[in-house]
């Protein structure tokens, strides 16, 4: 799915959460969105999913302008907020089944896919457990399994590595993300963990105060930041902080 953002802005009262953001994202990529707290990462993901309405500018998916009412496009997008949203009394299995129905995904291949995800996230013993009884990390993994099983063209994930997932879950998610990208899927996620972003990104988008400061493959950023101590992204963040001061 080709994604284009054209001068996207979002204001909450006086606060400009997004300020004329323009991006082009090609299909089959993992894009990490980085930035200090309040930089506009979550707002960007919410705009892309249709939850939040941009104040100005537009989002285009495959060249077509995106509106919340366009259900055909919305079925190609999955969004997982920082806190997974699910009905508390639904069991893990029921939740996954519900999400698959909503995305119109079915067939016998889905069965093995769901099994792989349940095994990979160590969720098998919990399939009959209500979502409300799960810990935060388990609930996040259950919600993520459902969306990964739906296998949408675009997956938007807010802070997956600060979700309470255990190390095994994080490793499995990274592997699944790589496999999805090989199938042409696009994954956009926000994070504050620079090490992880360096290892799991085809492109990095660095935001600050609602603006995109850098949007490039990691190799290009390395060239920009040559000579500074620490990792590439640590150097970039240091520069951001210094420029702000």
């Amino acid at each position, binding site marked *: 799915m080709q994604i284009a953002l054209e001068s996207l802005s979002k204001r909450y009262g*006086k*606060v*400009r959460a997004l300020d004329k953001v323009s991006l082009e994202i090609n299909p089959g990529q993992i894009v990490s969105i980085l930035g200090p707290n309040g930089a506009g990462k*979550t707002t960007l993901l*919410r705009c892309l*999913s*249709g*939850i*939040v*309405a*941009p*104040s100005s500018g537009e989002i285009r998916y495959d060249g077509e302008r995106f*509106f*919340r*009412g366009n*259900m055909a496009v*919305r*079925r190609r*997008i999955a*969004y*997982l*907020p*920082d*806190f997974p*949203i*699910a*009905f508390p*009394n*639904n069991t893990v*299995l*029921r939740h*996954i*089944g*519900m*999400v*698959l*129905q*909503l995305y119109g995904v*079915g067939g016998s291949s*889905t*069965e*093995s896919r*769901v*099994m792989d995800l*349940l*095994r990979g996230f*160590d969720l*098998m*013993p*919990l*399939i009959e*457990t209500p979502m*409300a*009884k*799960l*810990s*935060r990390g*388990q609930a996040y993994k259950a919600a993520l399994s459902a969306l990964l099983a739906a296998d949408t063209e675009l997956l938007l994930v807010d802070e997956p590595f600060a979700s*309470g997932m255990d190390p095994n879950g994080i490793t499995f998610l990274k592997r699944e993300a790589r496999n999805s990208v090989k199938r042409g899927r696009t994954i956009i996620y926000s994070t504050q963990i620079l090490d992880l972003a360096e290892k799991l990104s085809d492109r990095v988008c660095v935001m600050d105060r609602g603006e995109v400061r850098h949007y490039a493959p990691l190799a290009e950023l390395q060239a920009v930041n040559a000579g500074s101590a620490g990792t590439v992204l640590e150097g970039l963040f240091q520069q951001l902080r210094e420029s702000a*001061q």
Partner: protein
Amino acid sequence: MKLKSPALEKRVREVARDEMRLDKALWKDYKRHRKSWLRRKLEEGNKLLFVLLSLFWVLVFARVRGHEKETILVAIALYATATTLFRGLNFRLNVVGGYDRALFLHFPVSDNDFLKHEWKKFVRSWLGAFCVFLLAYWIVALRSDLVPENPGLVLLAAGLQTLCGASLSMWVPTFFPRLKIVASAIPIYFLTFICLWLPAPAIEFLWSSVLLVPAGWISHVFASSRDAASRAENLLIVPAAAICLTLPLALHIARKALSAELDRQTRAGSDQLEQMFGGAETPEEADTEPISSQTPLQVAYEHISEGPSWEKAGWIEKLVARSLNAQERIVADFMLAQNVGDWSKRWRTAALISTVGVLVTALAPLPPLTLFLPMVAGGLWGAPLFGGIWPGFTGAATFGGVIPTYAVFPVGYVEISRVMFKANIVRILVWAPLLIAYATVLATRLGNGPRYGLVEGILGVALALALQPLMITAHFSAGTNDTRQINLHTLAFSGLAMVLLIPTIASVVGLFVADSLLIKSVAVTSVFGCTMLAWAAYMRLFNRGRIDLLSASR
């Protein structure tokens, strides 16, 4: 328990502001994020709510002329009743399972201190209510011939109303802890608002009806305070004062009950707390064994895709299922959180209530006003008069606001509305015979004849159906920031809504006042037309992305 450190806050603010002033960008950023002085002041201690309530009573002042004092006194009685229910139930909710409880559990605060903190909030909220009552009774006194020169009477009425309300708001949650705010207080608040536009016969009816509640007794006493002929009505002050005197006892009993409940939660009920607020570790997690990738399949596709069975649920669910296609059933499953089967049970309860009501109406020598109650209760329970209960609209708290559940899944405005509309039509139609039969018996008992009851019953059903698009729109609206998002589109919608409100209210009033069947039919059609227009206009706002699916966090 002190929750503020004003001296420290002041010092830190001063130092921080001095430091930020040195850096232009930082200062600009600070100013950008800080709320305006007016907003900060208004939001402190729910002052905004107080201002809005005061404005409401000023509106009442402007609306009510000359001797229409009954309208305003009915509004006071209804408001006092609603606020009693709301404050009492909300207080209990906050103490045993609310945000405050969740917050203080994470800090070294004893249950006693926590309870004291909540009591203080409760008392403050009633002080605010006292000011509102004072203002309201002043308006009555000024706008009518009621003792404007005697401020003592106004003060007494407001004081009695407050003490009586505070006392009852302690008794109600103690004896009816399961009562829901949405089902009890909200409809009465709604009635308070619309009673200002009701015609004289309806006000007369309400003026008698409010005698059923203690708040109404005080209004009646106030109205008849100068009238020697109404000595009997003045006597109502005795039971009202008696309720006020039970306040210490009510506080004592409520305190005891709440302390016991908090104690149960803290000592033995850790499971309950886990359930309420979610825990970091659960027994399931502790028992979890790593699963080998060689584990054989335990789950078949049929299990994964298995939805709730509409066919095995009750007869109303079967009827609704027939009207839904496959895709709509998926949306309905989702919007009901996969819990199909509640509608038939509710209908059975409504039928039972209505049957008892019909028998009582036909046989028991009760006052006419009480005979309406089972009909109203049956309708509220059995039919989706306010759009029904749809868990898919439930909000989930995330940082920055509350997102309705449906927003993160690919289900749209039209799809959800279609399912709700179809289901609600079926539910209202199956409830219709209950209402019509009841109305016929009631009209016969009240001497209006069965034909009158039959017509009014049919009109009631028609009105419930005609209002459905509005109710559906209201469900969507509750999960958005439409009232805070000010742009050309939301302003245009608000303008349209105001324009539509006038013919809608006029049609609803006309529906029950007009004698001609033709006018009644036109009125129903007009209501339906207006609500459909509102629904369609909101759809445009929603689908074109002019509002956020993000309501303010509490």
